[in-house]
């Protein structure tokens, strides 16, 4: 049996839906529930997270990944070193990508995310500090 001390930090009392930017994989991941899930690749730009144990009456999807964020911002002429709200990014994708692949994402986005997460800032610059860089 091994025992490890984890890095110093606070684990909040409750899970809170959130969005993070993964600089190494160039994607934003949004997770709305703390659960085991299966990642379903919809297309090269979008992956949705299907709950492995959905709640009765609950959504079968608990999140999504928006991929190729650097590419997207580059195509749109936006600055990768700036901060954007998740709402800004979803809005940009909806306008830029084929609408059909966005249906599940939009449904999740509208029904599962609290306003403060939608409006939360996804900082694309300050997360560029991973040790493996």
């Amino acid at each position, binding site marked *: 049996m091994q025992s*490890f001390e984890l890095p110093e930090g606070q684990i909040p009392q409750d899970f809170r839906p959130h969005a993070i930017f993964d600089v190494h994989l160039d994607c934003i991941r949004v997770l709305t529930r703390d659960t085991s899930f299966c990642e379903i690749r919809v297309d090269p730009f979008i992956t949705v997270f299907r709950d492995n144990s959905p709640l009765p009456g609950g959504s079968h999807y608990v999140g999504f990944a928006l991929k190729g964020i650097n590419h997207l911002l580059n195509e749109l002429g936006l600055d990768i070193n700036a901060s954007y709200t998740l709402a800004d990014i979803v809005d940009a994708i909806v306008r830029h990508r084929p609408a059909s692949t966005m249906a599940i994402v939009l449904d999740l986005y509208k029904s599962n995310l609290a306003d403060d997460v939608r409006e939360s800032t996804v900082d694309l610059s300050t997360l560029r500090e991973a040790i493996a860089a």
Partner: protein
Amino acid sequence: MPRYTISLDGDRLEDFGDYYAIKCKNFRDPVGPPLGGNRPQNIKVGFTKRMVKRVMGERNTFMLGALFGIIPVEMPRITSAHLGVKRPLRYEQDGNADGNVYVVVMHPTNDVYASIEGESISLIELDPPSREVFVALLSKNAKPEQYPEVDFWLEHCNWVDSDPDAPQFPVNYMQRYEKACIWTG
């Protein structure tokens, strides 16, 4: 700030200060000549404490469970490796970084989540989801002189559907990776 502790069965994880490292079956070196008998059986995969800290801050108990309960157990017995995720991926100056992402496949006997009691974390096992495989996305260690203990870094891990015609592989593995399969073992 609290310091949480986590207990793991066995002796699978090494602590190198800023990161942990785990043994992984050697998918990197080709079998046979020119390496011949010098081919190492295992290589090392690391994951950063920065990643752990982020997951802790999200209270993502299933990802914590995966990092400490699935990855250390399953990395030494991965069954296949694939290369290139075929999607837009820019990392630093490399606009085609998707071609450098390795995907290794595992068949865990359990799903795992982390149960947090005060400052103590224990791993709880559940039945694994059916018709799914567990994958880890890895990148080569670009700074071996700085981190000599690690060959690859764990970037992400998750469940994916298994292929209906070849259930040992991820669904659509022939289409979804640049090199559909670079190693099996």
